[in-house]
């Protein structure tokens, strides 16, 4: 976003960070307890862990890079 104010990328970063942490957290829980959802395929790939981690990392990057008040 051009001009002053909170950039859209910050909002997106916040959302991705929250989602990433939630999904990663569930993936860790899944791995620790060994309880996988029935009928879901490829649970052996532990998708919530790497996808959640990816979302969280991307979100964190955007939150830091586009945080309010940071000079562009």
């Amino acid at each position, binding site marked *: *976003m*051009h001009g002053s104010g909170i950039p859209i990328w910050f909002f997106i970063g916040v959302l991705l960070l929250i*989602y990433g942490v*939630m999904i990663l957290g*569930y993936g860790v829980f899944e791995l620790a307890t060994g309880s996988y959802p029935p009928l879901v*395929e490829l649970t052996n790939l532990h998708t919530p862990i790497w*996808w*959640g981690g990816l979302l969280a990392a991307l979100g964190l990057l955007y939150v830091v890079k586009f945080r309010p008040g940071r000079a562009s």
Partner: protein
Amino acid sequence: MFGLVPAYFAAGSFGSLPALLAFRAEPLAHLRPLDIAVIAIYFGMVIWIGFYLKGRSNTSEEFFMAGREMTAWIAGLSFVSANLGSLELMGWAGAAYQYGILATHWYWIGAIPAMLFLGLVMMPFYYVSKTHSVPGYLHLRFGEHARILAAISFATEMILMSGVNMFAMAVVMKVVLGWSLTFSILISAAAVAIYVTLGGLRSAIFNEVMQFVLIWGGALLVPILGLIQAGSVAGLKRQIIANMHTDSYFHMWRDTGHFASNPMGVHWTGIVLGLGFVISFGYWTTDFLVVQRVLAAHNLRAARMAPIIGSYFKMAVPFIVILPGLLGLVLLQNPDGSRMQLVGQDVVKSCTADDSASQVDAADCAAAMSKTTLPADYQQKVLTGAPGTELHSYNDALPLMMVRYMGPGLLGLGITALIAGFMSGMAGNVSAFSTVWTYDIYKPLINKQGSDSHYVLVGRISILAGVIVSVGAGYLVQHAHGIMDYVQALFSFFIAPLLAAILMGMFWKRATAPAGFLGLLLGIVSSVGMFIYVKMNPAGLATIALSPDAKPMAENLYRAWWAFCIAAIVIFLVSLVTKPKPVAELDGLCYSCTVLPKQEPVPFYKNVWLWALLAVCIFAALNILFW
């Protein structure tokens, strides 16, 4: 935000969305608390953004044009996102399941050339004229009558589309999640009303960009995991050929030499002229819903670059839409482990009770299934109501693939992406409606002397009114299912004549005001006439599409082409016998009469022509690769 879907699916899959209301004992997916939390956080975020942006939407320029301060990236993502709604995702995934990568035409030739043309050639006119809307450009070029006709037809289309979109979303949520129609409609309408009324176009654009990220974050896993399970693209291809006994699912052009050679029943001339030129250029360069996003760019260079950036993302969308449909062909399984075969909506409707109290007509169901390739023993199981033999339609391909790979949290993210698509689509409709209503209907016809703050207030009220009318239209569609086909077809009625008027206005200085108005009017009338003709006389399809082998998809393409030709011919002939505007009055409105502002020199890597050329090369390479 039906975008391009209605023109193609008016008689097909989503044209029969109400049929999805047929009673199902079980929704496709069951959400866990983590999924609900993911969805709730999204709603909280959009409301937060709406309240945050309220303070930055006080003037009409801020409210209706987002202050014209969007970067090329944001305008470009918003531009492409305005056509990336959930109905598009689900509809085209279903089309890919049905027709293979022929469906990709609607993402490549049906978008890329037009997007590049908008950025390179047309954007300077829209931008230099400082118009607030496409009808506004018509006003400057062809006068008040053309503006009013375009504005009223566009506003009507937007509001009805918004209603149909809302109803369609509620139906999908009912089928996928088991939510009640009223719950889905009221929650989504309230959220959209709050954030668009508060933040105007800026809020709509913010949410479109967010939706774009969510769609990729939520849907990208499906093709990745699907390809892993199918054993790469080579494995997918091998299994499809083994299952379907043909390789035509992987060819975009090879089988379009005759209507009967491909399952869509289309010919390459229809794809090139009807889709690649008229519908695509009409939608991407003259539909105000998408053009408004680019007009919000902060300078001319950003406005030109935005559609070019969007074209790259558009070329990538088939990866999350078409590929899941193809993967569904080989990976979806019935509970007993056999390959699941999706069927048309009409078959699902015939074999599903309308409610828990009614019965399926076995003869109807058997007759409908006999036209499919479902194995005989499976048909028998469906008829006897054996457990686990529920039929699913083509449109369920994407949700079924999501449910297959996404556990708690991830499924919530996927569903959030669908909801975000629906909501930003509705927000796009009502924000475009609000701008056209305020600038092109209210201001010229009702109150020409209002203050700036008055027009902002009118804009906010029109958004609220638009949402309320949309809800009403949604319920109207629910109770009068036949209307849906007509509402969806509205899109195709206006777009082709509008393209003819705008192209001739921009590139032919001799085009006159009466000619522009008459061409627009007669183009719309002829398009409606052809639609009614085929509705009343299905055999008329062969006349419109020039072949007895043509299917409904072809009718949409050729109807658009003929409507464009009629409008263009009328504009040409009437212009010859009417008085044109003096050239001096066409500055900024007509190509040969305008000196475009010189752009400041930029490094080569920021040159719009360079990026457009690269996009053309990728576009050509993709078409050759999947020839």
